[in-house]
Each structure stands twice: as C-alpha cells, then as structure tokens.
C-alpha cells in the first residue's frame, strides 16, 4: 500500500546529486502555491529504489511528479527516465527533466525517452525561482495529474 497524502500535499521526488541544487530547489519551492514535500535522492539507483519502494525506501510515498537531473553518477538521468517510462506501474508519473544542459541532443533524447517536459536550469537565481514557480503552477494547478 502506498502512503498517500490525504491532505492535498504534493510529493515531489528530486533526483539531484548536487546538495547545493537540492537546497536551491527547496528554497524556491518555499514560495510555491501548493504545499509540497520534497524528497531528494542523489543518484539514479536510489531514485529507482524510491519509486519501487525498496530497501530503505519501503515506506516512501509515490511521488506525484519527478524532477530529474541528467548528469548523475552511476546511472545517468536518461537511463532512469527510460526505466521509469518502460515500467507499467511508474510510467504515468510525470517526469520533468531539470538540468543545466541546453544541448539539443539532450533535449531530443529526453523526449524520445518520453520525458513529460524538459527544463533548463537558469543561471540566475531569480530566473530559477521563476522557473520553479512556473513548474509548480503548471503541473499542480493548471494540469491534472493521474490518480496514483
């Protein structure tokens, strides 16, 4: 059984190996409209364990959305994306690629692996806040998400 949030709280899984980025995303999400819980894991294997509720993540909630960095140690973002999108029970979780890379090849590859959205992390802090705010607004108030 999934530990579901009944109070309307949104669970976000952030797959990001840089603690600075985790902190920045947390700071940015403080101002989000929707109450959220940010769960951060720092590599691909941990991300898959979290999603499949294995090992130390046996009680982890099913995230409403995944924010996925591409440059990750061991298993890179695209590999994780592929695994999520080929897994029947996971593939309906929206995955947003959130990365510093604006390489057209990375963008193309991510969409080819069925990323729901590709966002470049902007350099400027204020713009980053704005981007996180827009992600929050679009995915949690404009868009409708599937029942978990």
């Amino acid at each position, binding site marked *: 059984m999934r530990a579901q949030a009944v109070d309307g709280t949104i669970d976000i899984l952030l797959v990001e190996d*840089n603690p*600075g*980025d985790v902190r*920045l995303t947390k*700071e940015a999400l403080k101002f989000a409209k929707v109450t959220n819980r940010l769960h951060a894991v720092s590599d691909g294997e941990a991300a898959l364990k979290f999603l499949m509720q294995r090992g130390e993540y046996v009680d982890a909630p099913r995230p409403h959305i995944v924010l996925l960095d591409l*440059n990750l140690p061991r298993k890179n973002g695209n590999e994780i994306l592929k695994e999520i999108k080929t897994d029947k029970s996971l593939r309906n979780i929206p995955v947003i690629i959130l990365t*510093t*890379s604006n*390489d057209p090849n990375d963008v193309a590859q991510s969409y080819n692996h069925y990323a729901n959205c590709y966002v470049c*992390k902007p*350099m*400027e*802090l*204020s713009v*980053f806040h704005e981007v996180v705010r827009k992600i929050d607004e679009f995915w949690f108030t404009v868009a409708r998400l599937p029942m978990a």
Partner: protein
Amino acid sequence: MHLAVGTYATASMMVNEDGRIVRANSDALDMFGYTNDELEGQLVEVLIPSATHTAHRDLRRNFLVEDKPKRMMGVGRVVYGRRKNGTEFPIEVGLSRVATTDGPFVVCALIDISARVAASTSLEIRTRELERSNAELQQFAYVASHDLQEPLRMVSSFCELLKDNYSDKLDDDGVEFIEFAVNGARRMKQLINDLLDYSRLQFSDDSMSSVPVEDALSEAMYNLTSVIQDCRADIQWTSLPTVRGNRAHLVRLFQNLISNAIKFCAAPVPRIRISADQDGANWIISVKDNGIGIDADQLDHVFGVFQRLHTHDEYQGTGIGLAICKRIAESHGGTIWAQSGNGQGTTISFTMLPAEASAEPLLDMEPISSGSSGANLENSNARASG
C-alpha cells in the same frame, strides 16, 4: 620491338603470352636488382611478392583476352614489386598488349612510387592526427564549458541568496564584496556560454547549400531589428552573390559583424556598407563601417578567442564575436581579415565559394592530359572512345 623496350626512358619489360620475361631494359633491371641473364625467360611473378602470385597469374591471363589493349594495373590500390634481395616496394604499372607474328606480347612500363606513397602516407597520418586533435579540442571545450556551469551556478546563486537575505546584516564592505562576487560570477557565466557556443560551431558537409548572401544578411538584420532601430543605423548593400554555405552560420556571421559595427561606433549614426567583389572563382564579401576603427597592430588579434581591445567600462562583451566569425569563414573554406585606417572605420572582409562550385564540375574542368595517374589515363580513354 625488343629494341624499342631496350631504349625506353622508364623501366620497361616485355612479357610473352606464357608470362615469361622476354626483355627488360636497364632501368627495369636496376629497379629489381637483377642482371639480364638472371631475368630473361623467368616468369614475371618472380618480380612480385609471393602472396600475390596466383592472383597475378589469373589477371595476366585475363588481360591477354580482354577487349581493352591498354590498362593501368592497380588503379585505386597500391601494387608491390619484389626485388632480388627480397625487399618490396610500391610500383605503378602500365600495360599494353601488342600482337605480333610470334603471338601476343605485353609491354609493361614500371614506375617506382615509394616516395609518392611515403609522402601521401605521412600526409594521411598528419591529417588523421589533426582531425583527432581537433575533435579532442572540440570535446574539451564542450565538456569544460558544460561542467563548469554547474559549480558556477552554485557560486552565483548562493551569492545572490546571501545578498537577498543577509544584506541588512552586513556592513557596507560586506555588501560590496558580495557585489563583486556576483558580478564576477555573472561575467564568467557569459564567458562559459560563449565558449560553449564557439565549441558547438561545427557542421557537416551536408548542411551546406546555395545561400543567397542577401537572404542571410536580411535575416541577420531582422534578428537585430531593435538594435538597428535604436541607433537608426544606415545599412546599405550592393548586389550580392549566391554562395555555397551553411545558412544559419552565414546569418550568424553577418549578425556579429553588424552588431560590432553598431557597438563600436562613435558617430551619431552608424553607417554600414556591405559589398561583394569577385576574386578569381571566389567572392570577397566586405562589411565596412564608420566606427572607431582598430589600431594597425591589433588587426590580427581581433579574431582571437576572448580578445578584447577595450575595458569593460568602455565596451561590454567577452570578445568572442570575431572569433566566431573567423571560425565560420574558415569552416566554409575561406579566410577573414580586417582593414582599418585612421578615422576610416573598419572593413571586415571574408571569402566565400560561389554556389555552383560543387565537387563534380571541378573535376570536369581538370585538363585531360595532366599527370600520368591511372585515373586520368582512364578518363582520357573514356573521352576518346565516347
């Protein structure tokens, strides 16, 4: 016939229909290190590496019944000869079949091409090395700029967080220091972006097409609309040719040159003239402005990566613009240069290939009689019969 072979200036031999050497001239004897007595009557295979004996014997027999009476051996690949002392060397062989009352003979002309093969091999090696080191450089610049972004974003973001959230807890010095750090990070970000841009400037041959220069120029001006309107720049051009190029990169080239012309202008209205002159088969495209000009001793430097001639207070920018122009011009097989005189503004010129200069017509224009290479011989045969 025997006499004729004996007096040839190049190494020559005559072989009968059984493949036995009937006559070899002194150049041919020297080439292989045999005396006439040793060679006469021997099968011609004695002069080639044993690994190719069988194949050669079959080819030799086929040649005697072929329609064509003349042929180059080993066109498109290297044929090897074998000296008496066992050493092997690359040769070029031309064959002619001659019918006599004693039956058919084959006259062979032989050229030792060791020097040519060695030269082209070392050129091939050098070219491959250059290609590899270019690719590595590309990779390096790309990875460096990519991977540098991450830590830089940390520095700049947390500096900004400090500034936003803690300014009231710091004294004036503290605020100023953070300001410097933020500015430094911002400038470095621009440098890295430019480096990334520069390292991505590569394209394959198939991205080349016929591009009307005027179209590229118009698109560049469209991209610069607001800048051009703000300074009411006066931009005019004469009739411009169609060149062979990568359209997006030509747009970029003009965009950089025009924005430079506008940026480095002290006159009330920037005046920019674009013209084209023919230089042999090529075109020289020039962009002339009425700007502040470039000192003579700096003319060569301005095309370097991150070369700036002014302080950040005077003119903003990282100094990548002309380096990108240079790279675009050179990847089109052209060159780029700057001219500037006292108070005369700057003229940047670059060469471009005309649109019709594709590979095939160029080959067609080659004179039939040039050189003695197999390909040309075959070409001239084709022409004669066609």
